[in-house]
């Protein structure tokens, strides 16, 4: 997909996707992914406006409850972004998140949600371009799904 079509996703492409106006939460770790988001912003890189970023000190502190809660209270998708393995500011927080992510993927089924609604990505502090790309990709993936069954609006 070319850059321009994604950036206009909110306007002309509405009829093409199942969920034109999704709510995507991005849980970002302070040290890598949030800094990358900052870099993406200062570099004027574009990504869809449907992503809401929540800053955490480390992905290792993101309890599965937070993700399941977000998804069962109406978020269409949740993406967790942390440091690359080995780069964690707290040594191994991201490794913990990785093992939790497996459990979360399993539980999505128990809550009647598609596996595509949750994703874990590693985004380094200097990877502003990757951050914007990942957000575009995730948003597109969520837009191609029907709105979350838990969404109330």
């Amino acid at each position, binding site marked *: 997909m070319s850059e321009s079509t994604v950036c206009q996703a909110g306007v002309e492409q509405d009829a093409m996707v199942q969920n034109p106006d999704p709510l995507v939460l991005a849980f970002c770790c302070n040290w890598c992914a949030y800094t990358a988001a900052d870099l993406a912003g200062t570099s004027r890189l574009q990504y869809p406006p449907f992503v809401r970023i929540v800053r955490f000190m480390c992905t290792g502190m993101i309890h599965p*409850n937070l993700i399941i809660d977000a998804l069962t209270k109406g978020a269409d998708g949740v993406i967790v972004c942390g440091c690359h393995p080995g780069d964690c500011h707290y040594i191994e927080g991201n490794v*913990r998140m990785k093992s939790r992510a*497996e*459990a979360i993927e399993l*539980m999505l089924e128990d809550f*009647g949600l598609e596996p595509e609604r949750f994703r874990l990505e590693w985004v380094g502090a200097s990877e502003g371009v990757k951050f914007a790309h990942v957000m575009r990709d995730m948003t597109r993936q969520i837009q191609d799904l029907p709105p979350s*069954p838990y969404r109330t609006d």
Partner: protein
Amino acid sequence: MPVKVVEDWLNACSGCEISILNIGDPLLDLLPNLEFVHMTALVDHKFYGQLGEKPVTEMEIPEATVGIVSGGVRNEEQKHELEQIRKHVKVLIALGSCATYGGIPAHANMWKNDEVFEKINRHCSSTTPAPDQQDLNVPPWIPTCTAVDEVVNVDIRIPGCPPHPDWIVEALTAVLNGQTSWSLPERSVCDTCPVIREQKSGGGAVKRCFENLEFNPEEGLDKMRCINEQGVLCLGPVTLAGCAGKSGVPRCIQARTPCRGCFGPIRKGARPMVDMMGSLTSVGLDPKTVVDRRAIMNRYIGGHGFLTPLPARPAR
């Protein structure tokens, strides 16, 4: 003047009533202050409306101060009975995990009512033809198997399968002293468990609860390794403490078998399955290997929407 008590069992097995009888010595101190005016499981008390006779249209439950209800609500008859009890008592106590959370019968909530009925009453190999669902003599099911507080207001909840007599005494004493609320302290089974914890396991697959644990029967529990860390699924981390009463080691752990979660979630609104899966991964076990996780981790708490038929996914 003794306080009048109405006791009734709904979708229940009578284990909670046995637990009342099992109070022992403290029951002798309590009894002079209690007058059981209605207790279908233990006392032969006929009441009008029980069989739907005319012209009575409502079940006649005697007036009382305290109402104790065991069992969840499965059908219209139980729902009506419960509503009548609520009308006639001042303080309502939900006794046991079925009344508090839905209990074992609420596993049926994983399927639609029709599916359950068809399976149980038509298609089991051991089934002989049962009355039709539409039969007027069979009370129709309500949409889901619910806990008591999903139908009426509940003042006091005493969870447990069965609830420990200590807590029944404590709750009843609180009510006799004029209180209208009482609850168990918010502690987990692990908080009261003496086993050795090292915060990590050998990794690998999660074993089912009937697999053997490693321990020396000559030694006490404080020499045994944590059951979860031995790789066997134990619901202790996400279960309310109290199964051994006011003191002592959780009962299943005493028997060297894993906790099954009968006291329900530690806090209102907690999601034991999500917490437990997180807990398993943090000791390094493989969450994929938990067998039947949805049912196992919601074993006693199928009410309150914890267990529902999964929404049909659109074919893609």
